[in-house]
């Protein structure tokens, strides 16, 4: 319960934010990426709102000895760039541009367009499994 309840609250707020901000609408997402065409800046406001809140939260974290419901914080610590990071981000960006969906909105859209979202999410999970197959270990 200590983990389940905050996780559900976080996911629900996240899904509500995605829907409210228009990220579950592929036309709006692709409109944002259409920088050289009929550009729709809405998602810059979504990103901006989220980043400003989190920038404040990151200032609070060092003042806390531990998170509220867990023993300790777990942050990514790597600072290096490699081909894997950049190549992976590029592949992700291409997929994002093609259908106008990234992982969060794809999953959230299961209640908006169940069939379309299910195809996207299953293919995404398959892609994740393929990476795991080739690497043979979790990272």
């Amino acid at each position: 319960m200590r983990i389940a309840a905050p996780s559900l609250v976080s996911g629900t707020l996240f899904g509500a934010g995605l829907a409210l901000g228009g990220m579950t609408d592929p036309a709006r997402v692709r409109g944002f990426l259409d920088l050289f065409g009929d550009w729709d800046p809405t998602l810059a406001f979504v990103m901006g709102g989220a980043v400003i809140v989190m920038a404040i939260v990151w200032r609070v974290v060092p003042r806390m000895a531990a998170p509220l419901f867990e023993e300790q914080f777990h942050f990514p610590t790597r600072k290096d760039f490699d081909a894997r990071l950049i190549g992976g981000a590029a592949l992700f960006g291409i997929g994002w541009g093609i259908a106008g969906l990234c992982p969060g909105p794809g999953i959230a859209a299961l209640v908006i367009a169940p069939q379309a979202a299910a195809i996207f999410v299953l293919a995404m999970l398959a892609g994740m499994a393929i990476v795991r197959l080739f690497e043979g270990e979790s990272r």
Partner: protein
Amino acid sequence: MMLPGFPDAAPLAGVAGGVLIGLAAAVMLLGLGRIAGVSGLAAKTIGLGGSGIARSGAWMFVLGLPLGALVVSLLAGGTEPRFAGPLTLAVAGLLVGIGTRLGSGCTSGHGVCGVSRLSPRSLVATLTFMAAGIATVAIMNAMGLEVLS
């Protein structure tokens, strides 16, 4: 409110949605000490590594996503968004799945949590996937490919 020059933009709904996403990430970080990265949490639900959170926590987060979207669509009512066809969705989903695992994150983990922390890896990843997305849409538009129906 309308944005001058961009009649279709929804800046207020955008900021409000963004603040909710930021609060969601704050609950995950301050409550459980973890990054709210959707691709990592989604991978974790099916046991593919990803987030270090307990698998049950990953499931609760992932189940919350459609739940939150449902609440908003019930309250706001709404338009019926257009989605790509099955084949296009499958190709896009595959690329998103492979890319987010190789690149260790997506729009939420890198774009929101990492950028707000000024993580160098997240800044590079975010610039890369934004550039790739912009180039992809530009090329598809130049080729006259209309995918949303």
